[in-house]
């Protein structure tokens, strides 16, 4: 009914004012253009970085990225891998290569350990009954919103000096966390990321694990399986999608992290991850400015690959846990 009506109205209009209608319909599609204009605007920055990273220093300083194709005519090499060569290897330039290893070390461990720990906790919150469970869960997840800044000062001093507590009245001091001289070392970043990731990880995994069918657990416990077996044999395999979602989220988060590594590793150049090395390149205006493009592209490459290959899981992690703090 509706469709025929529209058709006739359109038919009448078309026969009366053909040109006007064509223009009208053309102009009405402006919102769709708006989408594609936005898409192009959103892509230009990344694209310009990509192009510029293959241009010589003077070419980068002399003209915008859109002139890359005429670089050859101006006596420059394009594309050239010189920037990458220079930025990757420590004997020539900035040593981003070494920093990439540190980034990988930080991100891999700071992804796997939180997943494991949070999966146990999420299982316990979902399927083990105990008093105060709901409250403990809410309290843990509420910490999502806490900004990591509030924990940095005490954590750094714990890593560099340990934690000692003087018992009031008795005037005796005990060591609660030994002075392991962790500040400047990568394990301090692992520990910090693991702690900070906990609320979000528990929240995300719990949502999924709590949604697994109840019959599954009942039949398993009739078969005499204990919690550990159920967790290991049943819950873990079934939770692969959400584990993957969290893993990707956490990997990108830790790989891209700047604040925590800067605070905990600080001045120890050998252990700095890629983000900090590139940021410090950005800090020194001038001489090595051209390396910035290649450096930034290298540290972005890993996340981009993960993004394009596993976008589905990443989106799932984001939508499922959109209260990450």
């Amino acid at each position, binding site marked *: 009914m509706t469709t025929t009506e529209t058709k006739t109205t359109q038919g009448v209009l078309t026969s009366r004012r053909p040109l006007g209608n064509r223009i009208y319909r053309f102009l009405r599609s402006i919102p769709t253009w708006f989408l594609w204009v936005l898409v192009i605007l959103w892509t230009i*920055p990344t694209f310009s970085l990509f192009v510029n990273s293959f241009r010589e220093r003077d070419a980068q300083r002399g003209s915008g990225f859109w002139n890359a194709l005429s670089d050859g005519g101006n006596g420059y090499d394009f594309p050239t891998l010189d920037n990458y060569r220079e930025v990757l290897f420590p004997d020539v330039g900035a040593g981003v290569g070494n920093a990439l290893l540190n980034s990988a070390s930080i991100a891999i461990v700071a992804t796997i350990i939180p997943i494991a720990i949070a999966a146990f906790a999420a299982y316990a919150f979902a399927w083990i009954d105990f008093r105060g469970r709901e409250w403990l869960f809410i309290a843990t997840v509420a910490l999502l919103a806490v900004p990591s800044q*509030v924990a940095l000062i005490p954590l750094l001093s714990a890593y560099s000096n340990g934690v000692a507590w003087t018992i009031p009245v008795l005037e005796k001091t005990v060591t609660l966390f030994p002075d392991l001289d962790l500040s400047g070392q990568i394990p301090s970043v692992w520990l910090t990321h693991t702690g900070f990731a906990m609320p979000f990880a528990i929240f995300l995994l719990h949502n999924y694990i709590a949604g697994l069918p109840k019959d599954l657990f009942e039949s398993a416990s009739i078969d005499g399986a204990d919690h550990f077996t159920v967790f290991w044999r049943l819950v873990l395999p079934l939770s692969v999608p959400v584990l993957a979602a969290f893993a990707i989220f956490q990997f990108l988060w830790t790989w891209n992290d700047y604040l925590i590594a800067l605070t905990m590793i600080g001045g120890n150049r050998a252990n700095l991850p890629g983000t900090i090395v590139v940021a410090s390149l950005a800090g020194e205006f001038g001489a090595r400015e051209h390396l910035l*493009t290649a450096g930034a592209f290298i540290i972005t490459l890993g996340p981009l690959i993960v993004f394009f290959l596993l976008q589905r899981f990443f989106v799932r992690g984001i939508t499922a846990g959109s209260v990450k703090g």
Partner: protein
Amino acid sequence: MNRLVVTVLGIVAAVGGSAVVFIGINKLFDLTEERYPLYSAIAGGLLSGGVFYLLWGNRMLESPVLVTILAIIIGAALGYALGIFEPSTQRLAVGIGGGAALGLLLGIFAADSSGEGETAIAGILPSIDPVGIIVGILIGAGLGFLIWVISGRKPELMIPRMAMGLALGWLLGAWMAAELTGSRAEALIVAVVLGGLVGAAAGGRSRPDQVRRADIALGSRKYIFLTPALVFVGAALVIPLLRTIWLGFLTGNPRELTWTGLTNYADIFSDPGIIDFSGAGDIIGSRLFWLAVFLLVVGTVVGRVLGQRVGTGFSVNSGSLSLLTGGVILFGFAVFTAIRGTIPNNLWWIFSVIIFAVSLGLAVAVLADRARGENIAKSLIFLPMAISFVGASVIWRLIYVARPPQDPQTGVFNSLWVMLGEWSNSGLAKTLVSLVLLAIIAALAYLAWRGWQAEANAIVAGSAAIIVVLGWLVFRFLGPGLGGFETSEVTGEIVAAPVLFIQEGPWNNFWLMVVFIWIQTGFAMVIFSAAIKAVPEDLLEAARIDGATESQTFWRVTVPQIFPTIGVVVTTLIVQTLKIFDIPKVMTNGNFDTQVLANEMWERAFTQLNFGLGSAVAVVLFVAVLPVMAMNIRRMQRERLG
């Protein structure tokens, strides 16, 4: 290559170690039902070994390696014995004996004060003080009795509970409260009694029967599963948070902090760098402000008029809403460019990021929904989410870069801006561009007219808005000129004048926010997209059958359906934006009036080493997220507790 090996080994050790510990403990508690003595032996060894290891770590033992190994052996033997013996007198005797043996070990090897300077060890040999011991025993007896009463007054638990309380009291009174200047003999007496009491507590309980062992196997799991997570949450978030709140009241260098009350907070809120109201008077005088008022008034009128047409008080549609949003944006900018400082900057960030990321994200989600190439468009908008803030800052520096006026501009923005300036000063280009713009205006006017006939308000409002903006452009272009140029006062020549996007305040703040908006629009889009796809098809179909236009369906059906999602996106963005750090840090390091709270905190704490003030700034951040936390808690309570 060497580094690569070290890295891989570190990863394997960290992951493998954690796995072995966790699985090991689970396997240990699996033993309780079938092989109780073995479980008991391992648990005993681990417990006593753990205690001695802690003493070792606190430098309270002499020859610690040997002592800890001995402690593990004795503990395991004691655990094994208690795992076998049934009769209660035997158990008690074995427990006291084993405990006393451990005490003897401790007494013999407790550290005596020795060494000087760096290597000095404060001894822990207690000197026996009758008063302390008597007070300790009294406290311990009271404590033990209390625990026994609380745990249900079971007669068979009387001895172990009392022994446990007495052990605690004895430890407090005879050792911890004592002067640590005693002799070896005194240490032996105190330690053996302590060990005996602990052993009595362990041996005083009957051997668990099959049912209780199954209970242990089952009941232990919640602790095993939860402890690692809760330890991390406590150690990395809760305790540091409490300590930061405490540090906020202290001042001085990190080694010797002294109490200063609320001085840090007074310093923060009286610092003109952090909040400065002196420009507030200029708000009324600014053009932005009046433009904002104009848009808000027009938006309200449009909403009212259209609302009366359809019989509601106020019509929420593309026209009224875009005018009102524009008004709110300009109003916010008028306020935040006048009231300066770190805190207003942070509020400005939150304001801009929420408005732009939410509206653009929603727009993309709606426009892309079922459009051709939906997935490609969404992927590309979403892509910046994968890029680090550092990478994004570097990328946008390239876009914003300003070269000297005589050189070609290499940044996209300045290149366009300077080109516009060149056109403004060339008669031909000026005429051509103006003609093109006027043609577009004419087309839009036609569109608006057709839209008016078709009663498509969104088209009318949208075209009208674009016409106003383009008209203003033509006016500027033909009149005073537009773009990056200036006339040299000396020679009268016209030279390029690029904009210093990153350095020129206060608008540089906005250019930094653009980077974050670029990233977060993808986030908002993904969430909205999921929400829009979840709107039931029946509802939309019903609205269409009732004759609603696309735009009406959107505002009356889709938007109310996804309203809770908007709330979630906004709260998430508030939390994310509040702690924004990387972008200002990398792009300006807080210079040129772009300081934000997170960077203020970092600089105070880690550059100036003023832990007190840094902590106070962190607490301000924490207080700012409290409302969001409270909302999240309320929502979860509703969902979970009913």
